[in-house]
C-alpha cells in the first residue's frame, strides 16, 4: 500500500474509533464532534488519495451535511452546526480576498453587519412578517454588502502595503459600528432592532436555518472553487505571490483585487442577514463585532489560507470547539486560557494551517521516496519528481 493511502486509512480508522463510542454515548455534543470528525475524515481521505476526486469529496460532504440534522436532531447539535456552516460560508468568502490575494481584511464583519441591518430595516419599513419569504430578503443583505464594498474597496485597496490595508479595514468596521450607534433615527441606536420572528417554532425551528446556511455554504464554496480555477483566480494567486511580478506579466492587479474584494462581501452580507433572522434581534456591537473578524481569520488560518478546503475545515473545527468549550469549561473560567493555548499549539506546530502542512508533508515524503529510488539507480542523476517539488 502506498504511504498516502495508508495515511488516509489511518485517518478513517481514527475517525471511526472516535465516532463509534461517541454515537453510542448519544449525547448531542458528542453528535457535533462525531459529525465534524466524520465530514473531515471523508473530505480528507478522498482529498489525499486523489485530488481529482474533489467533486466526489464535496458530494460526500454535502450528503453528510444534509443527513446530519436527521441523525442528530437535538437543538443544541443543530444550533452549533448552523453557526459552523454559516462560518464555512463566511470564511470561504473572506478567503477570496484574504486567502487568494493575501490582503488580510480584518473588517469583513462590516458586511456581516450591513446584511443584518438590511434585513432588519427592510422587514421593519415594509412591515414584513416572519416566514420563508424573509430568506429572500436576506439576499438583499448580500446586495447591500456588495454595494457598500465598492467605495470601501476603492479606498482600502489604494493602500499598497498589507499592514495599512489590515488596519484601515479595522477602522471601517468601527466606523460602521459607530454609525449604527449614532444614526438613531434609522437604526434605533444602541437599543438595536428586532427582526420578525419566523412563523415556525419549537423542535423544527432550527431546520430551515440550518439548510439556509448549508445552501449558502455550498454556493459560496462553489463560487470560491470556480474563481480559484479560473483565469481570474490565477491572477489573484499571482498577486499573493508577488504583486510587482504579477503586474509585470500583465495582470491588472487593481482590477483583480477590487473585484475579489467586492465579490467576497456578498456572501458575508447574506450570512449576516440569516444570522439576524435566526437571532431575531440585533445590536450594533453584536453584528459589527471585531470578534467576528478574528474568528474568520482564525478559521481560515487553522485550516489553511488560500486553500479551498482550509476555511471549511477551520470553521467546522473552530466553531463547535469554541462553543462547546465555552459551554462546558466557561463556568470554571478557564475557557479563554484553554482556547488561546490550543490555538498557539496549532499555529506553532502547523504555521501554514492544517491543509497545507499535511499536503506538504506528503509531498515531501513522495519526493524523498523518489530521491531514494533515484539514488539507488545512480549517484548522480536525480529524477524530475524532485525538481518539480522544488517549484511547489
Amino acid at each position, binding site marked *: 500500500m502506498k504511504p498516502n493511502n495508508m495515511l488516509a486509512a489511518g485517518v478513517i480508522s481514527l475517525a471511526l474509533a472516535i465516532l463509534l463510542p461517541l454515537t453510542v454515548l448519544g449525547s448531542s455534543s458528542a453528535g457535533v464532534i462525531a459529525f465534524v470528525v466524520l465530514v473531515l475524515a471523508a473530505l480528507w481521505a478522498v482529498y489525499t488519495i486523489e485530488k481529482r476526486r474533489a467533486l466526489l469529496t464535496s458530494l460526500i460532504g454535502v450528503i453528510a451535511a444534509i443527513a446530519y440534522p436527521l441523525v442528530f436532531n437535538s437543538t443544541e447539535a443543530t444550533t452549533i452546526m448552523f453557526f459552523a456552516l454559516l462560518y464555512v460560508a463566511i470564511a470561504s468568502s473572506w478567503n477570496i480576498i484574504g486567502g487568494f490575494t*493575501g490582503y488580510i481584511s480584518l473588517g469583513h464583519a462590516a458586511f456581516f453587519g450591513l446584511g443584518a441591518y438590511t434585513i432588519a430595516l427592510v422587514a421593519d419599513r415594509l412591515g414584513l412578517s416572519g416566514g420563508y419569504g424573509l430568506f429572500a430578503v436576506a439576499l438583499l443583505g448580500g446586495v447591500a454588502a456588495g454595494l457598500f464594498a465598492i467605495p470601501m474597496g476603492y479606498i482600502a485597496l489604494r*493602500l499598497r502595503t498589507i*499592514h495599512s490595508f489590515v*488596519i*484601515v479595514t479595522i477602522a471601517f468596521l468601527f466606523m460602521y459600528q459607530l454609525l449604527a450607534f449614532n444614526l438613531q433615527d434609522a437604526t434605533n441606536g444602541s437599543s438595536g432592532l428586532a427582526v420578525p420572528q419566523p412563523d415556525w417554532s419549537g423542535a423544527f425551528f432550527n431546520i430551515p436555518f440550518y439548510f439556509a446556511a448549508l445552501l449558502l455554504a455550498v454556493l459560496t464554496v462553489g463560487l470560491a472553487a470556480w474563481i480559484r480555477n479560473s483565469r481570474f483566480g490565477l491572477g489573484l494567486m499571482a498577486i499573493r505571490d508577488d504583486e510587482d511580478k504579477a503586474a509585470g506579466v500583465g495582470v491588472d492587479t487593481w482590477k483583480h483585487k477590487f473585484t475579489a474584494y467586492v465579490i467576497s462581501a456578498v456572501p458575508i452580507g447574506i450570512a449576516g442577514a440569516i444570522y439576524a433572522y435566526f437571532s431575531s434581534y440585533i445590536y450594533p456591537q453584536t453584528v459589527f463585532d471585531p*470578534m467576528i473578524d478574528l474568528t474568520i481569520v482564525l478559521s481560515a488560518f487553522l485550516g489553511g489560507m488560500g486553500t479551498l478546503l482550509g476555511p471549511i475545515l477551520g470553521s467546522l473545527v473552530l466553531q463547535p470547539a469554541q462553543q462547546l468549550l465555552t459551554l462546558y469549561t466557561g463556568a470554571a473560567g478557564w475557557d*479563554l486560557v484553554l482556547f488561546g493555548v490550543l490555538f498557539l499549539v496549532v499555529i506553532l506546530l502547523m504555521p501554514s494551517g492544517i491543509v497545507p502542512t499535511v499536503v506538504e508533508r506528503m509531498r515531501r515524503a513522495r519526493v524523498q521516496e523518489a530521491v531514494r529510488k533515484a539514488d539507488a539507480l545512480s549517484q548522480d542523476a536525480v529524477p524530475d519528481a524532485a525538481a518539480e517539488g522544488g517549484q511547489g
Partner: protein
Amino acid sequence: MDLVFGSVVLGILSGGIYALMAVGLTLSFGVLEVINIAQGMLVLVGAYFSFALEHYWHIDPLVGLLVTIPALFLIGYGIEWAFLRPLRQDRVALSILVTYAVALVMEGLIGLWFGDNFVAIHAWYVDAAVDVFGLYIPYIYILGFALAIVLLGAVYLLLYRTKFGAALRATVQNRDAAVLIGIDVQRISTLTFAIATGLTAAGGMLFGATNAFNANSMLDLISRLLMIIILGGMGSMGGALIASLIMLVSVDVVSVVWTPNWSTFAFFVITVVVMVLRPQGLFGAPPARKV
C-alpha cells in the same frame, strides 16, 4: 476656564501617555514586521502589576516601575522567543493570530488571578491638580507626559546614538541586507520586542492611574493603538507620538464642541483620509520593500 483650551491641554498631556503605549507597537512592527495584537493586553498587564504593587505592598506606582519595566521586559523577551521567532512566512498575518492567542491566554489568567472587578491605581498625584489659568491640570497627566518624554527620549538616544540603535534601524530599513553585514537580526528582534514591552509597563501604569480597568478592556485599547501607529506611519516613533497627540486632541475637542458620540468617528475619518492621501502615514517611510 475655556473649555476648548482645557480639552486641548488635557488632550496633549494624555496623548503623551498613549504615545508610551503605542511606541512599543510601532517599534516591534518596524523591526519584527509583526502586528502585536497583545499590546493592549500588555498595557493592562503593566497596569495590573503596578496595581498589585501599590495595593498589596504599598509601593508607589512610580517607584514600582523599577520592578514592572524589567518584569515586562522579560515577558516580552519570552513572547518573542517562544511565539514570534518561529514564524517564518506570512509574518504579518500569522503574528496577528499568535499575539491574539497570547492576549487571550493573558486575559484568561489575569481574570483568574485578579477577578473581573474594575480596579484603579491610586496615588496622591492622581487626584491632586495644579491651577493653570483656571484649568486644573492633574499632576498625573503632567507626570505622565514628562515620563513619556523622558522614556521616549531615552529610546531616541538608544536608536540614534548607539551601535545597537544603528543595527536596529538598519534592520527596520532592510532586513535582508542587515543579515548580510553581520547583524544578528534575531537577537535585535528579541531585544527590540523586549524593550517595546518594557516601555509598555510605563504606559500601563499611567493608563491604570487615569482609567479604571479590568482584563476585558483589551480589545478597545488595541484598536485605538493600531489606529495611532498607522496614522503616524508604521515603524516611526515620532509618528506614534504625533499621532497620539492628534488622536487625543481631536477626540477631546470634537467631544466638547460637538458631541462625544461622533468624536471617535471623527478620528477614524481623519485617519482614513490621511491614509488615502499618504498611504505610508504621516511619518512613515514610503513603501520601499515589497509588500
